[in-house]
């Protein structure tokens, strides 16, 4: 057994709302092995996105530990933290909001290569073309502006930017929720291919159990900032034990493609 790529324990984040203090994330612990996908599931307000932001150090926790690649991630600061960020990337839900509205595709992909000194200036255009190809896009796209390309293409660009620095973990915050169903499936396939090739671990955040059961190894179901249940994704989704797990499974739209449901309804 290898050591986990990410281990968080006792993670807590409280917000003040008026005079009350609400724990958005309340004593959460889980870990992710290299090359595996752990999904965080739960209704809105269950703390999924807060955990993503805590893991990425976009916000600071009130309590708990985050161990990333075997070291204390919360103790890092300044230049050391920025350098370590190369290994921990993120893909956002809305691919349009995730990029500077003035940026071109080339600039978006150039930034991580430049910041982390991955390639010399003269070599970067070739690297960018290679990245575009890795995510199934044409290299010509580099010259385009972000707002000119389609939503599916943008999300591929977001993935290209995330893998530019050879990360060991990518946080995907509802990364496929805003996409059309056919595009969604292609993006999930791309993520799985990258995981297989590069042994990237994913922290996959979604409220959609259908998507989670399609790509996750493990699932943590959250309810009001706490872990309701966790375990192997197929096992948990197949037979949820917690009330929220059961509600999520019951609420997922089901396609019964062989039955004649609806016909009886019509009479």
């Amino acid at each position, binding site marked *: 057994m290898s050591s986990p790529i990410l281990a968080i324990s006792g993670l807590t984040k409280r917000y003040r709302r008026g005079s009350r203090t609400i724990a958005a994330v309340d004593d959460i612990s889980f870990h992710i092995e290299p090359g595996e996908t752990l999904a965080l599931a739960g209704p809105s307000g269950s703390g999924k996105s807060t955990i993503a932001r805590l893991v990425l150090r976009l916000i600071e926790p009130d309590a708990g530990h985050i161990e990333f690649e075997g070291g204390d991630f919360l103790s890092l600061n300044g230049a050391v933290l920025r350098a370590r960020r190369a290994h921990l990337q993120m893909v956002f839900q809305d691919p349009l909001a995730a990029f500077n509205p003035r940026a071109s595709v080339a600039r978006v992909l150039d930034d991580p290569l430049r910041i982390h000194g991955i390639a010399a200036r003269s070599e970067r255009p070739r690297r960018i073309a290679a990245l575009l190809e890795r995510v199934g896009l044409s290299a010509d796209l580099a010259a385009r502006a972000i707002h000119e390309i389609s939503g599916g293409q943008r999300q591929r660009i977001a993935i290209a930017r995330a893998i530019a620095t050879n990360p060991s973990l990518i946080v995907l915050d509802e990364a496929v929720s805003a996409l059309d169903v056919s595009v969604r499936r292609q993006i999930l396939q791309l993520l799985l291919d990258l995981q297989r090739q590069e042994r990237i671990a994913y922290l996959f955040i979604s409220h959609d159990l259908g998507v989670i059961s399609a790509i996750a190894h493990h699932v943590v179901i959250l309810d009001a900032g706490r872990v309701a249940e966790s375990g192997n994704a197929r096992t948990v*989704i197949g037979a949820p034990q917690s009330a929220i797990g059961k509600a999520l499974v019951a609420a997922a739209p089901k396609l019964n493609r062989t039955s004649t449901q*609806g016909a009886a309804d019509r009479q």
Partner: protein
Amino acid sequence: MTALLSIRDLTVTYRRDGSEVAALKHVSLDVAAGERFAIIGESGSGKSTLALAIAGLLPGSSKVGGSIVWKLPNLRSPHSFAPPSVLPDISPTRGEIGSSVAGTPPAALEIGESGNDSAISPQVGEMSGRTEGGATDRQPASLRDHTPLGGRDIGFVFQDPSASLDPVMAVGEQVAEVAHTHLGLTWSQSYAKAKTLLERVRLPDPDAALRAYPHQLSGGQKQRVAIAAAIAAGPKLLIADEATSALDTIVQAEIVALIRQLVAEDGMTLLFVSHDIALAAELAERIAVFRHGELVELGATAQIIASPRHAYTRALLDAHLGLDTEPLLQQAGASR
């Protein structure tokens, strides 16, 4: 089955940066009175344009061809045309939206100069009053009063309830305003009606909700308020345009159940616009599949799901990721 509305050869084009983009191309379909009808498609399919066209809410810059003909069985006399704040007023003068009355004597309807519109038979064969290529502003004023009115005859629920509710008006007032405007009730009657409606959409505490402002409610609760406002005037047709897409799965299931119940109780016709074919299949009796502005396939839900005729419908069904779908990930290698 009597049709509530007949759409014939509907074409909608938007002008964008000097070029014309066709959002809908020669769409013809009938919506039966009292049915639950789903329009599904991906982004750019024209599904929302169709919903807006039916509601008469297309932007003024769009060009409309073809016809949408209504057959409202018991058209009420108009009360007031002050546009409610929640639901933008319908403007039937854009495009050609005719109206005819089935089941009531023709005398009940005053027809202006273009009396031929009343001659349309409920079965709808040939459109007598039909024009091609963007008929605008040619609806006579007297006829306008008898075309369906947004808020009164059509309830519209938008995707984003935070955008469709007025942030500085108590939600009770927003619901009451619709009843006041369209039902001719006094304000105190309207508030009583609003309270009943908020109970009907099962807001946890209707009395408190009457005085609440949108920001004090959750996304699901706001959508319940939007639905209450949409059905306040007892519309014949309820249009839900991606009404559950911004909500999480659990709330989505609750809202879908609520819509199903309200539609059944009030005998409304439902037009459910969605990108999610599985969700649409759970709710609708018939499904119309759109792609790139064209109607690809139309049929009973069971037929569309079990034996789709068009390759695109099949592709949409295959792309669905349900709990019962074979996972993309091979679980064999996974262990902890």
